[in-house]
Structures are given as structure tokens and as C-alpha cells.
């Protein structure tokens, strides 16, 4: 267990030096801060526009940070052979993979925390209070990133950095369209096509489960039961991805 945290802390330190992530974070902070100026066109909708835009920015930039941090972790270790200096120590492959996963999460959450603090501060300064429902949206966005991180690290156990990043983004986008896949499957008569689409619908993550942005923006209450179901779904999907990733990584020669 201790080795997982040691590797995670080292991965986090490494990620802090990633210039691309710093640029993405800076961009997100500027974009969130500038949302308060959009509202001059619709003063009555100020809160909604600010929330909607800011949550969208956090999800989009957070997604990019997640795939860029995670996609390169294993491939870079393998190309520089630093992995041989770790796996020649009493570190199991499970510990290494989980250490890298946790390190990526530290980094993703740290970046997310900065964006959340900026957004909350702006909302507080502008409206004098922050709707606590917004934090439910943050929790589910974080859960979405955990799942995406697990998918990307699973991909990176068998592929290059570029492949992992591209497919990570692709799966994220498709994962938000899975309801359309189900809709399409209903419209096809061909058994083969129907089966293919339904398999995709079942296997791909349904990221819409974590999307409560509209509800929060419109001021609706999101039940704790819904939150719980979404979090359990995320935990199961993450565990499955990590197990598949481990099965590939355990037999991978480094």
C-alpha cells in the first residue's frame, strides 16, 4: 500500500511540471473569470449563463487535463525506461499501475480544485452566496474524470501516448452520446446492426449519468439517491477498467 502512495506522490510531482497542463489550467482560469463579463447582454440570466459556461469549461478543460496527464504516464515510463528502475525494486505491477492512477488523480483533482475555487469566488463576489447544489455537479464531474482516467490508463497499457489520448477523447465524446446510440439501435431493423449498436451502448461508459449541469443551472434539486447511483456506476466502471488494464500490464514486457 505504501508503495502506491510513494509512486502516486512522485507522479503528481512529475505532472506539476507538465507545461501543457499549466497552459490548459491558465486558459480555464481566464475563461472562468471572464464569464462574468458575458452577462452584460442578459442581466436577468446572469447566474445561469455564468454557471452554465463555467461548468462547461471545467468539464472540457478537465477532460483534456485528464487524458493528457493519464495517456502519457505508462508510455513515457516505457520509452525512457524509468519503469525498469521501479519494477526492479520490490514493487508489484499492481502497485505501479495503481500508483500511477492515483498520481494522475491527485493532479486532476488539484487542477479541478483550482478551477472550482476560482468559480466559487467569482460567484460569491458577484451574488454574495453560492448555491450548494453546484457542489453536487462538481462531485459528479470528478467522478466522470475518475472513470475517464481509468479508461485512459487501461488504453495506455497496450498503446502509445498519442493513441491513448486520441481514444480517451473519443470515448469521452461517444460516452456522452450513448443515449443516441440506443436511439439509433431502436431505429435499425438489421439484427447485426442492432446488436452492434446495443453492444456499444452496453460496453461504452455512459458519461451522461454524471451530467447534472442543466439541473443545477436551472436550480433543480438533484437527489442524493441519484448521486449515489451515479457514483456506484462510476466506481464499478473504474474497477473494471483497472482490472482489464492490470491484466494487460501484468504480461507486458518492459
Amino acid at each position, binding site marked *: 500500500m*505504501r*508503495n502506491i502512495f*510513494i*509512486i502516486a506522490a*512522485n507522479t503528481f*510531482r*512529475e505532472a506539476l*511540471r507538465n507545461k501543457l497542463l499549466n497552459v490548459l489550467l491558465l486558459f480555464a482560469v481566464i475563461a472562468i473569470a471572464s464569464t462574468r463579463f458575458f452577462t452584460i447582454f442578459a442581466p436577468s440570466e446572469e447566474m445561469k449563463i455564468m454557471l452554465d459556461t463555467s461548468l462547461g469549461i471545467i468539464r472540457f478543460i478537465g477532460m483534456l487535463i485528464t487524458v493528457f496527464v493519464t495517456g502519457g504516464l505508462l508510455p513515457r515510463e516505457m520509452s*525512457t*525506461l*524509468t519503469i*525498469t*528502475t*521501479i*519494477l*526492479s*525494486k*520490490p*514493487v*508489484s505491477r499492481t502497485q505501479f499501475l495503481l500508483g500511477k492512477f492515483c498520481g494522475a488523480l491527485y493532479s486532476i483533482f488539484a487542477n479541478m480544485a483550482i478551477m472550482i475555487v476560482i468559480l466559487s469566488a467569482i460567484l460569491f463576489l458577484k451574488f454574495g452566496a453560492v448555491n450548494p447544489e453546484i457542489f453536487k455537479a462538481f462531485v459528479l464531474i470528478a467522478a466522470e474524470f475518475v472513470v475517464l482516467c481509468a479508461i485512459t490508463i487501461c488504453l495506455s497499457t497496450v498503446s502509445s501516448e498519442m493513441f491513448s489520448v486520441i481514444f480517451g477523447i473519443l470515448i469521452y465524446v461517444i460516452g456522452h452520446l450513448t443515449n443516441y446510440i440506443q436511439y439509433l439501435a431502436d431505429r435499425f431493423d438489421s439484427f447485426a446492426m442492432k446488436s452492434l449498436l446495443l453492444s456499444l451502448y452496453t460496453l461504452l461508459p455512459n458519461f451522461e449519468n454524471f451530467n447534472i449541469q442543466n439541473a443545477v443551472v436551472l436550480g433543480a434539486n438533484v437527489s442524493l439517491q441519484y448521486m449515489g447511483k451515479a457514483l456506484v456506476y462510476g466506481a464499478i466502471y473504474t474497477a473494471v477498467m483497472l482490472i482489464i488494464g492490470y491484466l494487460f500490464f501484468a*504480461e507486458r*514486457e*518492459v
Partner: protein
Amino acid sequence: MIKLKNVSKYYKNVMGVKHFTALDDVSLEVKSGEIFGLLGPNGSGKTTLLRLMLGLIFPSKGKISVLGKSPRDVRSKMKIGYLPEQPYFYNFLNPVELLSFYGSLFGLRSGELKKRIPGLLDRVGLSRFRKMRVRNFSKGMMQRAGLAVSLINDPDLLFLDEPTLGLDPIGTNEVQNFLRVLNREGKTIFLCSHLLSEVEDSCSRIGVMNKGKLIKAGRLDELLVAKNELSVVMRGIREADKEKLSELARQSGAEIVSVSRKKDSLKDFFVRAISGEK
């Protein structure tokens, strides 16, 4: 300490057909307290063998036991040190952080690390650079850092892959002396090198690899003995009498200091072994 029995490693293509044999039926034993040198030209399979013994890659056939355990067993690595060829470390760390990181993977606590690290840096000559980031290190300094990392757990068995690569002659000499000191301290050393002088100066037993096969193995002094040839060392012989050496030895009143079997240099032996294979 190390036992390899009929170990082969081959790689298959995408169709599952064997298309490259990296190691072919290698059997080898290294005993406790030895400095074993594995020689071979580039691509002969030395590093593959080393990576198999560390569990970084897996054998296609055969059995490997290191410190009585399978290399897949992480517990076997508690008492192993490894210096890779051209070590590359997390370049944002300085040597103290580097050693703390790797030391903590062995379960060493900060108090123990604080005791060990200064001594180790001193031994490998990096004390002056303790605050310098590894990214600014020269090749030789990186090699020294690698050596320190391989010793952080006070291992019983050291795997060194080309340990003097990138070092100047003085650094090379220091490392070779250091290896002898470590051996005297009781550490078993498995050294991979293509530098014959390095192996000849440091090792008690050697193995020679070529094209994935272990073609020779044994004690250095036995392997280098040339059969039916004697080396005669004399003191006081006149220059003019050199031609009739054996006859004149007594006539010129020379003192015969020793008579021993003539030895080849390791270089001659190595070239002969490799060309004999071809």
C-alpha cells in the same frame, strides 16, 4: 544465488510464429560472493538475460531462480540492486530526492535514509552535487547516481549493466575498485559488459555470449590458460641471449624466478571464442 536452467527467450510476430530468438537454451549458475562477468558483442543477449533475471521480461522456456525465488516474486527484489545500461531517472529530482524515492520503495524510513544517503553519495563521488537536479547531470554523473541507487537497499546481489559506460578512465578505475570493495563486503556481483579489460580486472568467473547462446563459462584463470605452453619469467638475462632463451638460461647464470602456464589475454580469448562460433 542465481540459477538458470535451459532458459530461452524468443519473440513471435503478429501471426504467432517465432521470428527472433534472443536467448537460446542458456544454463548458468552464479554462486554467492562471486563477481561474475557476462561478456558478449552488442546484441548477443546479455541485457535480455539480465532483464529476465529481474522479472522485467519473461522466459519463453526454462526456469530462473534468483536468491531462491522466481524473478516474478517481488520479495526476491528486496536484496537486489540494479544499475541499468544508461540509467535514466526522474530528471526533476536531485540525488538526495532520487535516493529517498528509491529507498522508500524498499520500505526504508526517513531516519534510515538520512543515515544512508550522505555515505552513499560520498562513496560514488556525488556529495558536491547533492542539490543539483538530475537533468543537469553528465553521463558519468548519471552513472554514479545509478550506482548509488543500486546500493540504497544494501543489496546482497548486484546486477550491473555496463557500469563504466560514459566514465572517463579515472572514473572507470574508481568504479572497478569500488566493485572489488563491494565484493569484499560480501556482495555478489553480476556484471554485463562488452569491455574486456573491465571484466578481466574485476571478475572471478565469466560467461561469453554470442547470438543468444552462452558459448563459454568458467573461472577466468582456467579459461585463459593456454594448453601446452609455459611462461618463463627470468631475472638478470642478457639482451643478446634472448634468442636462445631456454638454453641460455642456465649458461648465462640467470635466476629462474617462476615457471607458469602461459595465459592468453582475455581479449585474445574472446575474439577466438566469438570467431570460433562464426
